[in-house]
Every structure is written in structure tokens, then in C-alpha cells.
């Protein structure tokens, strides 16, 4: 459903705006991010051009918002509360579509660009994510959990908001840098770009990015999930061999 919505985004914007509207030509610095042994995070450059029908930038400058999203996860969130003197997980909520990664950059603070309703429709901002709650919690509770998730993932570098980080040159070229934390999961990511004028999204475009483990890291992850017995044996043999080797070396010293 989300995927379909994403594919239709440009179409949604189209009829609202009429024929002679600007277009976006976006690109990203890397279509594929490989996680190697030394991976400690990366930075993606999202850039592109705004193509106006008459070839000239309008007098009133438009705004750009870029959103980089990771694969969605179905999650259970738990909240610790003090019960009988100790902190235990006391409340929980389930969400069907929590992004594993979400980063947004905009040319100005988001509340200065669009109103709340538009921001909610396009999921612009950490507080506007549509997590699709799957459990029967009260609304206030769900909001608390959503804020908790945003805070947690923000500190892990998985949720990023960078208002004002999009640079627009001469009204036609834009670029923004977004950080990828080392904790990102592998999978398909999307980079969405929105062109906003007078509080309306007038053009949108999507680029796909793939994050995957490469070489040894991929091999290890595959081995652990596809040949668990062999993987376990390797772990055991490695432990025994190293323990034995250290012991026999030490005896000779």
C-alpha cells in the first residue's frame, strides 16, 4: 500500500497543480551503500535540479524537502514503569509500519513551509510518521509511545531531522547531506524529494537506494541464517582451538 502510494506521489501532485508546473530531477550520491567490516556509518548526498516550464526560477523562491526512509518494520514497543520498587516493562503498544530509518532535511524549518495537514499527509517530520498502531491503546498513550520511539531512534542516529540543511543554489539546484548511522538495517531505502510552493507540494520525485552487506559481512549473515548448524560448529571449533592454542603456547613459555 505504502509502495503504491509512493509510486503515485507524482501523480497526486500533478492534477492539483495544472500542466505548466515545475519538475524535479533528483539524484543521490550512492544508489548502493555497502556495509563492510569498517562500516561506521555513511553520509548520503541528495541533490538535483528543479526544472521550471519557462526555464526561469520564479521570483518567490520555492522550498525543497528531502526524506530518506528505510524499510518499515512491525514492532512492539515497551515502556518501563516502577512496579513494587523495580523498573519493569509494564505497558506496550504494537505498530505495523515503523520506519527503521527516517531522515528529513528541508530548506527552512518545516512549520514555515507547510501546514500541519500537508506535513501529516506527506509524513514530513518525526511527529508526523504514520506508524499504524495495531494494538488497542488510548490515543494519549500512543502519542507517548510514538514520542518515545522518536527519541530512542534519534539518539541511535536512526531518526534525523535537519531543518535548513537543504541548500538551494540560484533557485534551481539543490543539495542536502543526510547521515546514515552504523545501526541502519539492510534493505531497500527511498529518497523522496518534494518541491513546495505557497504551502503546497507542487512536485515530488523518488529515487531508490539499496543498503546491503557486502563480502564477508553478507557471508556471515547468510551463514548464520541459512546453515545454522555449520555456523554453530564453526563458533565451537574456533573457541576450542583458540583456548587450546593459548594454553599450549603459554605452557612452552
Amino acid at each position: 500500500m505504502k509502495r503504491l502510494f509512493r509510486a503515485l506521489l507524482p501523480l497526486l501532485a500533478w492534477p492539483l497543480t495544472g500542466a505548466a508546473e515545475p519538475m524535479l530531477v533528483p539524484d543521490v550520491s550512492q544508489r548502493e551503500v555497502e556495509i563492510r567490516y569498517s562500516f561506521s556509518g555513511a553520509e548520503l548526498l541528495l541533490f538535483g535540479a528543479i526544472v521550471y516550464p519557462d526555464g526561469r526560477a520564479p521570483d518567490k523562491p520555492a522550498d525543497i524537502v528531502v526524506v530518506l526512509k528505510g524499510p518499515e518494520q512491525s514492532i512492539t514497543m515497551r515502556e518501563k514503569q516502577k512496579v513494587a520498587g523495580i523498573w519493569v516493562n509494564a505497558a506496550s503498544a504494537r505498530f505495523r509500519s515503523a520506519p527503521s530509518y527516517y531522515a528529513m532535511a528541508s530548506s527552512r524549518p518545516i512549520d514555515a513551509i507547510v501546514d500541519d495537514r500537508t506535513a501529516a499527509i506527506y509524513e514530513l517530520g518525526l511527529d508526523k510518521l504514520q506508524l499504524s498502531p495495531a494494538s488497542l491503546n488510548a490515543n494519549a498513550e500512543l502519542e507517548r509511545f510514538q514520542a518515545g520511539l522518536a527519541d530512542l531512534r534519534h539518539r541511535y542516529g536512526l531518526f534525523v531531522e535537519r531543518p535548513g540543511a537543504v541548500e538551494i543554489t540560484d533557485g534551481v539546484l539543490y543539495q542536502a547531506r543526510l547521515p546514515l548511522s552504523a545501526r541502519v538495517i539492510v534493505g531497500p531505502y527511498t529518497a523522496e524529494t518534494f518541491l513546495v510552493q505557497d504551502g503546497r507540494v507542487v512536485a515530488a520525485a523518488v529515487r531508490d537506494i539499496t543498503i546491503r552487506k557486502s563480502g564477508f559481512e553478507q557471508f556471515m549473515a547468510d551463514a548464520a541464517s541459512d546453515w545454522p548448524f555449520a555456523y554453530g560448529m564453526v563458533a565451537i571449533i574456533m573457541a576450542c582451538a583458540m583456548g587450546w592454542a593459548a594454553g599450549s603456547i603459554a605452557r612452552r613459555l
Partner: protein
Amino acid sequence: MDLYLPIANLSVNALVIIGLGGVVGLLSGMFGVGGGFLTTPLLIFYGIPPTVAAASAASQVTGASVSGVFTHMARGTVDVRMGGVLVGGGVVGAGIGVLLFRLLQALGQIDTVIAILYVVLLGSIGGLMAKESIETLIAARTGRARTARKRRHHPLVAALPMRWRFYRSGLYISPLAPLLLGMMTGILTMLLGVGGGFIMVPAMIYLLGMGTQVVVGTSLFQILFVTMATTMIHAMTTKAVDLVLALLLLVGSVIGAQVGTRISMKMRPENLRVILALIVLVVAFRMALGLGWRPDEIYSVQVQ
């Protein structure tokens, strides 16, 4: 030196993990314990997901106990029959541990249960060890020897049906007693990533009444095989064994263990036991504080 852990899905400083393994190895060499009770909490504290920490710490305990088992086998201080029964119980216990682990995870209480188990076990064992070793120290100072406790197994053990002869241990008891003991430590190994030596040794002495000369060797024998089984069970079920993490821990701990063994030869055993008791108590105290203080993270996320 940052290194990406392929199963834990995050990057760590390799030197920190090797150093951590080294410290734990040093302690395990000095005190003859596996050190799992330190590895798992320290890894979790460093930010490794608890399941990955417990699964990978088990293989570090394997590595730490291998050379000890060889030495004890050569000296003939392993009761293989008793060890076999303990291992059998341990493997069954590890299997039960998996089920418990899953159940608790589904309930969302695995972290709390692990923390409470640590506090209760380490607190009580540490307290007992501290009491006993301080008494020994005082006795040594005043020159009065403590009256040795008469070696005899617990009355409950004698009540169990069926009896086997364990020659090396000097026992004629029901194999159900060591089987149950093995099972309990197997569950702990699975849940906490500990070898269980710190429970096994006192239980062997005070509950089973085993001869002290075979206690350490037999407990190491049991730990070796049960941690192997645990690693395999984790690999097959939780798939949370991170080989890179395990390798880093092993590098540190096997070196640390050798250094620790040398240090222990130069120190008096009574002093060593006081220090170990204090370390155990400090870890228990820290875990207890973690339960009672407002935690850093109120929220946690579990991916389905």
C-alpha cells in the same frame, strides 16, 4: 579501530571488546571461573543487544575453559562419570532455557528476569563467599584453625531413588541429584550466558558432598560441554551468535586467562577469594541499582 559486527548489526571499537575479553580472561585465570557473569552485563552495557551478548559470551566461556579441562584431565582430577551426568542435565536445561527465553521475550520481561536472576544469584553467592573467606582470613590471623565442615551430602540428596557409584568423587548417590543440578545450571547458561561455575562449585561441595580435589576439574568439564551445547542451541534457534564478536572476546580472554593464571600462582588463595567475592558483590550491587533507579531507556523496541 571500528569493526562492524555482522549479526549484532552495529559497529564497535574492536580494541575495547578485546580489552573487555582480556579483563574477563584475567579474572577467569586468577579465580578459576569462566567469567561469563561479567561478559554479558558488560557487553549489554556497551550497547550490544542482550540476546547477541548472551549467545556470544557462551563461546567465550568455552574458550576460557578448554585448556583448564585438558590440564585437569591429565592430572586425573575430572570425574568423567559425574561430569557426564552433569552435562546430560545441562543440555536438557539449555533446551528448557530456550523455551523460557522465548516465553519471557514474548511477555517482554526477559531483561527484568535476567537482571533479577543476576542480583539474586550473584548477591547470595558473593555474600557466602565473602563471609567464608573473611572467616578464613580471621582464623589465619588469630592462629585458630576453623573447624572443618564434615563432608557429607545434603539429606535431600540421600532421599532420592536409585544409586550410582562415582569413584573419583568418592560418592554413592542417586544420579538424579547431579542431573538436576546440571539442568539448573544449563537453564542459567542459556538465559544469562554464564558458565555457572560460581554456582556449580559450591553446590558440588555443599549439596553433593564431592571430594574437593575433583570439584574444579569436573565443573570445568561440565561448563565446557554445556557452553558448547548452548552456543549450538543459540545458533540454531535465536541465530544471535556473532562470530566476529566471539572472536574478539576470545582473543582477549585466552591471553588474559594465561596472565591471570600466572598471577594467581603468586597470590594466596584466601586473598584471591576475598577479591573475587568483592567483584561478584559489586556486579550484583550494580545490577540491583539498575533495577531500582530510573533506567536511561524507558522505552524499548522489539522487531517482529
